[in-house]
């Protein structure tokens, strides 16, 4: 190695690692990187899963190791469950990218009673109309719900709020 790599640089390299299921988001945008520790060329990255069964986590782990190996770093990825990930950790940048990609970003909502709450108003990522309806609480991946716009008729994914 020619020069020492800093922790900030590692964070920058991690911005090249994409969520395999939502490839517009980086793992940094997603807020799942909890910590980066460096000791010479040894690196320890701590991540937290979005959902316990999320099949993307293993892929992400390997992608992180592979990306950092290009910088000559030997990386270990550790998973921690607590504090549990919430959609609040998705960065503003990440939210903008999601919307641009056609996925409605999580809407901030207070954690009302679980049952019988009115579904959240989710603006259409295409025409911005607020006249949309929940089709199903469950979507194409664990983190998404399925909505449709009543105005432009666009069916779209909503990155559901997890708190």
């Amino acid at each position, binding site marked *: 190695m020619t020069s020492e790599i800093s922790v900030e640089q590692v964070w920058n390299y991690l911005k090249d690692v994409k969520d395999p299921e939502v490839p517009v988001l980086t793992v940094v945008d997603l807020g799942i990187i909890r910590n980066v520790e460096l000791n010479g060329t040894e690196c320890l990255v701590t991540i937290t*899963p979005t*959902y*316990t*069964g*999320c*099949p993307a986590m293993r892929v992400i782990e390997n992608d992180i190791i592979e990306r950092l190996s290009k910088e000559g770093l030997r990386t270990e990825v550790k998973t*921690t*469950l*607590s*504090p*549990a*990930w*919430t959609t609040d950790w998705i960065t503003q940048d990440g939210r903008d990218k999601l919307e641009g990609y056609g996925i409605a970003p999580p809407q901030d909502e207070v954690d009302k009673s*679980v*049952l019988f*709450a009115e579904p959240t108003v989710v603006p259409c990522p295409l025409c911005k109309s607020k006249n949309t309806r929940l*089709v*199903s*609480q*469950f*979507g*194409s991946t*664990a983190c998404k719900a*399925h909505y449709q716009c009543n105005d432009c008729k666009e069916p779209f994914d909503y990155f*559901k709020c*997890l*708190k």
Partner: protein
Amino acid sequence: MTKPKALFEYLIRHADDTLILGQRLSEWCGHGPILEEDIALTNIALDLIGQATELYEYAAQVENKGRTADDLAFLRLEREYKNVLLVEQKNGDFGKTIVRQFLFDNFQLLNYTQLLNSSDAQVAAIAEKSLKEVKYHLKHSSEWVIRLGDGTEESHQRIQESVDDLMRFVEELFFQNEVNELLQEDKLIGDCEEFKQQFHQNVNNVLTEATLTIPDIKYHQKGGRKGIHSEHMGFLLAEMQYMQRTYPGMQW
């Protein structure tokens, strides 16, 4: 019994509950009544299997005998599985699957909430993570109980039959023995009797809203927590374990 043994047993019970129910739900893949529900049920299955993974991994660590989470999930015998009978019951029609899920979600919600206070940091962390998922599952199952119960004459009648059939398995969710007592001494877990009344109240509220009758159960069916399963379990395990039994150590 030592405390690590008790903790192992406790983790296995709940890991088995989530794994077996996850396996049952995944049988719906490609068979859901509508596409959205096909996706919903398999999403819930995925969450449950994810929770099982966390619980088995911690159990393997507590046991410290070199067994992995996969060994625990796929290479035990029927009698070694400690899941409640409720979760191994066959899917039946969509309504029956929903009732089974609804009862289990209600239990998980209260049990995980209690475990947030566990003196064991890993148990508390698993509870915190899983609870967020369970809230979604419960919302989904409750809405369907109401929709089907307060739906057409046929949907009402069919889901009522499922409620009548499955309520006898509820009492086993609250099974406790010396394992629980030992762990309660150190506040690793709480006493589930404390939320039993709340459970029944929550369940009854939704069933009432769904215009369903709450059956009066005279005989509670139990056995799973002691490894004595219903006739359905062997078939489920045969399918679930097939790959690892036929090609030991197989990976992809």
